[in-house]
């Protein structure tokens, strides 16, 4: 009984459904003839550039060629890198280098050349032995060429190109690029050797606080005591070692492009390399000034390696005392001109 009722109800429902379908078909007919594919709308599903850009700032897909870099369809970081390279770096580099030259010029006009107050003693003391000088000049000569060829990449097209024309400038830049690439190796070797021969002597000590407090003798007339290296030289040493290492590492990343780096990695390496490069160049300009024009007798230390005793007493009193002590311990006369080892 219930079964029949159920069937009856079922069939009633079936008829109702059939009628609804028929009605729906009749209604849909004009629409279907108008557009056969109205049900499929690829627009809603299509991947769109704006969405991908907003999500990741880049569009990456799949390519069927071996070059993985080619899978990046659009990268907008390149625009930021361009802005950095063309504007930010140019400004920072210009201000740092021209600013340093201006500061040095003003300093020279105000302070003049720093003289050895007691005058030359006529007696000398060995400051840097041949190996130390060799390492210094190895690093220094490489750095000068690296800095100039680096500056050429950043500023050459605005400063040098209009003067010598595109062909000559391109030939020069090509040579400069090779020099920059290959001299990086002896430069890095120089950094490593400098670290080993001078790191112990450059560990900060309490004397350095006094040195800074008295303005290093650069500002004012004081002559703060200093060991073989004063606090300023120690600062320079660690700047050269640490910044130099960062420049070397970022440089090797650039020299071996896409070895484990992506385009973002290459851009970052270039930013670090360029920025630290111009800053270290500015610092080294100060170093060159004080080692040559800025201070009487300073160049001898790296020139022939022997400095005047009065110069040494004025600028590195503790070091001279130490050398004298060593000489006495070794049973020699106090500070003979040549027999004293540098360390």
């Amino acid at each position, binding site marked *: 009984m219930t079964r029949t009722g159920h069937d009856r109800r079922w069939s009633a429902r079936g008829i109702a459904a059939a009628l609804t379908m028929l009605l729906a078909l009749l209604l849909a007919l004009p629409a279907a003839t108008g557009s056969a594919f109205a049900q499929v*709308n*690829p*627009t809603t*599903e*299509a*991947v*769109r*550039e*704006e969405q*991908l850009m907003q999500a990741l700032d880049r*569009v*990456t*897909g*799949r*390519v*069927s*060629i071996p*070059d993985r*870099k*080619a*899978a*990046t*369809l*659009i*990268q*907008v970081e*390149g*625009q930021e*890198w*361009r802005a950095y*390279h*063309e504007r930010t770096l140019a400004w920072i580099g210009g201000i740092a280098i021209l600013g340093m030259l201006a500061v040095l010029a003003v300093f020279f006009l105000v302070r003049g050349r720093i003289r050895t107050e007691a005058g030359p003693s006529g007696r000398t003391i060995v400051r840097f032995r041949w190996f130390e000088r060799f390492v210094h000049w190895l690093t220094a000569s490489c750095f000068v060429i690296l800095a100039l060829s680096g500056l*050429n*990449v*950043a500023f*050459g*097209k605005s400063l040098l*190109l209009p003067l010598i024309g*595109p*062909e000559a*400038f*391109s030939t020069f*830049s*090509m040579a400069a*690029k090779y020099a920059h*690439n290959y001299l990086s190796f002896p430069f890095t070797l120089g950094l490593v050797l400098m670290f080993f021969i001078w790191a112990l002597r450059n560990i900060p000590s309490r004397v350095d606080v006094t040195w800074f407090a008295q303005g290093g003798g650069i500002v004012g007339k004081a002559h703060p005591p200093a060991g073989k290296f004063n606090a300023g030289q120690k600062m320079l040493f660690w700047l050269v070692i640490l910044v130099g290492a960062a420049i070397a590492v970022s440089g090797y990343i*650039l*020299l*071996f*492009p*896409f*070895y484990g780096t992506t*385009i973002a990695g*290459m*851009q970052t390496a*270039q930013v670090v390399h360029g920025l630290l490069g111009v800053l270290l160049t500015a610092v080294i300009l100060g170093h060159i000034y004080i080692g040559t024009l800025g201070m009487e007798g300073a160049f001898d230390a790296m020139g022939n390696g022997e400095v005047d005793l009065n110069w040494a007493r004025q600028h590195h009193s503790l070091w001279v005392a130490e050398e004298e002590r060593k000489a006495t311990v070794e049973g020699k006369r106090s500070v003979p001109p040549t027999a004293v080892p540098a360390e």
Partner: protein
Amino acid sequence: MARLKFLCDADRCIECNACVTACKNENEVPWGINRRRVVTINDGKPGERSISMACMHCTDAPCKAVCPVDCFYNTADGIVLHSKDLCIGCGYCFYACPFGAPQYPRVGNFGSRGKMDKCTYCAGGPEPDLTAAEYQKYGANRIAEGKLPLCAEMCSTKSLLAGDGEIIAAIYKERVLKRGYGSGAWGWKTAYRETIDV
């Protein structure tokens, strides 16, 4: 004067790579270099699209701006070309390019780069038109012959369009209106700072 541009209608691209092959053959592109490539986005997923991409010959081109030897120049049609005689292979244009267009043949060990190579819009280089020297360095100069780039010319679905920017934009617009959808002019905003509004 026309402003020549590329436009890839991604809704038509069937990833056949004929544009890539045509380019390689027409320009005798060296091994390992792809002036044009097809990138598939969302591969195998709903909404998958393939886009054929090469140098877009940007307005205010980033490569041109960052080149340390200033070896890029624009033709009267807005095509971005460069001189391989001046290029020093520094790699900067690749870092700046939004589309990964510049390529460098490997000339030595490790990463040493040769002279940069990229799509020339089939317009050769700074050498006199249709000379052997020009062909050897840059490939074909179809523009000098009054023809458009071969990649677009032989695209079987006419997905890749080359020609005056306004004309190809109008064609694309018409298509989108007719079929009722379009995934946009890929790269146009980045390259030309404009989009095609339909």
